[in-house]
């Protein structure tokens, strides 16, 4: 009888904490551990994210800032094995996405004033953008060998804003697992990674709409990641015009035609980069870029508010508020 009652006992309540890191709000929810152990695990995950935040601010005092200042001066700089591996992955994703995802646009991001926490503008003048476009920097121009990085292109500066949160979610997940966590949800801004389950049921994720409200919901299996990119995340208004942070390396300006993109994969790094790549690809090309990146579950909210979805996304995402998803084969 006692055993039977014990078997029916409720699992510990989830432990949830929020904090700011990597320029965004981080939320971590842990099931299955008592509060003290869960908080210790969340503390380890937070320390990991704060480590990456300090090291990889594009113009900060850490290794990425050091690298960017060296590249700007035409010099080389040491890079850790961890950063070198992520740069190699970013370069591969740059190639696979036809340059829509480009982690070498740090100088462009700075020109547009999106490198700080509170972007205000002004937007850069056409001459500065034209000069940047003429230099056409990308990670293809970065050479990394023997722990040292260099480039002949002095317009190249690394910004991990479109891949670092996915990487951070993965590293934070590793930190949680090393503290005995099996069931957790990590939300690093719009990048979410599911581990295990939510107290015996799948994790339930809502997708916000680009102008408020929700687009839909979906459940995540363990190890799956969701990433969302939208024109509402970081923006400023200058002379009555709204400028957002998702910059198209081909034009040097904010990408148009799409308001929001959602990607689901089993790789948070890919999900993060792909969400940006698909957004930049725009309404005409997002589907082919998804295919090129091996992303099956994706949807895009076009500028006119209509929602296009891959067949897999149409199966996975349950619309709310009467939203209609148009299937794009």
């Amino acid at each position, binding site marked *: 009888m006692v055993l039977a009652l014990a078997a029916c006992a409720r699992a510990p309540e989830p432990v949830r904490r929020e904090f700011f890191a990597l320029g965004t709000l981080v939320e971590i929810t842990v099931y299955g551990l008592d509060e003290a152990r869960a908080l210790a695990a969340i503390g380890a995950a937070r320390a990991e994210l704060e480590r990456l935040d300090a090291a990889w601010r594009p113009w900060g005092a850490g290794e990425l800032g050091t690298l960017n200042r060296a590249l700007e001066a035409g010099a080389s700089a040491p890079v850790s094995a961890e950063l070198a591996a992520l740069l190699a992955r970013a370069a591969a994703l740059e190639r696979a996405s036809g340059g829509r995802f480009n982690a070498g646009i740090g100088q462009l991001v700075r020109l547009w004033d999106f490198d700080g926490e509170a972007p205000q503008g002004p937007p850069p003048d056409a001459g500065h953008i034209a000069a940047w476009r003429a230099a056409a920097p990308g990670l293809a121009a970065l050479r990394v060998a023997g722990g040292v990085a260099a480039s002949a292109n002095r317009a190249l500066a690394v910004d991990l804003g479109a891949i670092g949160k996915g990487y951070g979610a993965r590293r934070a997940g590793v930190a949680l697992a090393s503290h005995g966590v099996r069931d957790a949800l990590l939300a690093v801004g719009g990048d979410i990674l599911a581990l295990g389950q*939510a107290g015996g049921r799948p994790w339930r994720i809502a997708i916000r709409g680009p102008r408020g409200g929700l687009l839909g919901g979906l459940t995540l299996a363990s190890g799956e990641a969701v990433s969302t990119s939208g024109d509402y995340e970081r923006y400023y208004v200058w002379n009555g015009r709204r400028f957002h942070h998702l910059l198209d390396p081909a034009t040097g300006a904010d990408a148009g035609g799409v308001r929001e993109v959602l990607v689901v994969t089993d790789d948070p790094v890919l999900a993060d980069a792909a969400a940006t790549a698909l957004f930049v690809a725009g309404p005409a090309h997002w589907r082919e870029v998804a295919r090129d990146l091996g992303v099956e579950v994706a949807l895009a909210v076009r500028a006119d508010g209509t929602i296009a979805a891959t067949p897999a996304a149409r199966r996975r995402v349950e619309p709310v508020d009467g939203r209609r998803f148009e299937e794009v084969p």
Partner: protein
Amino acid sequence: LTVRWWRTALTIGDGVVLAAGALLTGALAISQWGGMGTEARYAQIRGSQGVVTVALDHARSVDVPGALGPSTLEIAPGAIRVRTAPCAGRQCVHAGWLRRPGDAAVCVPGRLSVRVLGADAFDAVSY
């Protein structure tokens, strides 16, 4: 032909079972996504002194300390907004009234976040 097949193959008992199944499926769907797209019930506010959850039941103002100074949040039945904020970009103010579960305003420099909650809706919002 199809209609005739249904009429001959199904008994009243079968119909009761099917109807019960349909009701159960609907109930499960509501419990699965319960609250999404429905009215805003609460808001979770995070400032520099921790998290508070407020009911969106009557009009009032709340001052919330943040990293850059206090922000003023305005609450109305079923809605909340950031009315004033000390940050430069004021994206949280531009977000306007938050009325539906999942709506959120985040001020990264001010270390302030506001999120609207429904009734036990979901574990996280991808935004």
